[in-house]
């Protein structure tokens, strides 16, 4: 457990906490970006270069920007007067704490069985490409289909209804 890991983990968790705690919605989206960036750094720390860059490209370059656009299109940047938390926030908090307790207990309980430091695997982009095109070609095609469907679906859902079409 190096110092770098603690720093990056701290950054990620701080970003995530800020994303769910801050009042201003745009600030939340920006904090979310920090969490995404921290996560990408964690991927790099785990020697998963490709996944890390894909994380930055997809999450920071696309998802964060989408979130920001949605916030501005729904006028969400104005803080509502009657609080930002839901009526039954306490129940939500208790559930989340419970989930964390269970997960943490599971991880710590099995900590001894977990493998120790192993040699860093060297994964080239070529290997990933070969795997995508041979062993994982079916999932790849399904994801392609899913993305196309999502593209069309998102366009249809968000499209303005034409005037006089009611």
């Amino acid at each position, binding site marked *: 457990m190096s110092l770098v890991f603690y720093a990056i983990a701290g950054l990620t968790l701080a970003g*995530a906490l800020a994303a769910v705690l801050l009042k201003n919605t745009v600030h939340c989206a920006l904090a*979310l970006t920090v969490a995404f960036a921290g996560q990408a750094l964690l991927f790099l720390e785990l020697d998963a270069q*490709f996944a890390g860059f894909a994380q930055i490209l997809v999450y920071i370059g696309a998802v964060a920007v989408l979130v920001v656009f949605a916030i501005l299109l729904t006028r969400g940047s104005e803080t509502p007067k009657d609080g930002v938390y839901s009526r039954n926030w306490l129940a939500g908090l208790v559930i989340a704490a419970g989930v964390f307790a269970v997960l943490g207990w599971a*991880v710590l309980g099995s900590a001894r069985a977990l493998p120790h430091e192993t040699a860093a695997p060297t994964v080239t982009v070529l290997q*990933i490409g070969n795997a995508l095109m041979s062993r994982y070609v079916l999932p790849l095609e399904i994801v392609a289909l899913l993305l196309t469907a999502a593209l069309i*679906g998102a366009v249809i*859902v968000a499209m303005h209804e034409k005037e006089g079409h009611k």
Partner: protein
Amino acid sequence: MTPLAGYLLVAALLFSIGLAGALTRRNAILVLIGIELMLNAANLNLIAFWRYGPHPEALTGMMFAIFSIAVAAAEAAVGLGLVIQIHRHAHTTDLDQMNRMKG
């Protein structure tokens, strides 16, 4: 504590934070943000298990994470499209006010 346990704990914490956000916030977009965080936590788990697992050369965990990233992008696009459509219809993104099933 082994490195893997550290990553798993971070992922668990991230997941819980995302869950808390999704359950306690009013704004639909922030609920989506919470869900994104939970997905990210799952990805972190996948990558960590891939890295410290017995067969990293098989690329299974990594592939799973890459596919999951792609699916998350689709999920975000559709989800935010829905939120925008709801806002257009009901003029609010406050989930506490969306308590009717009638249009």
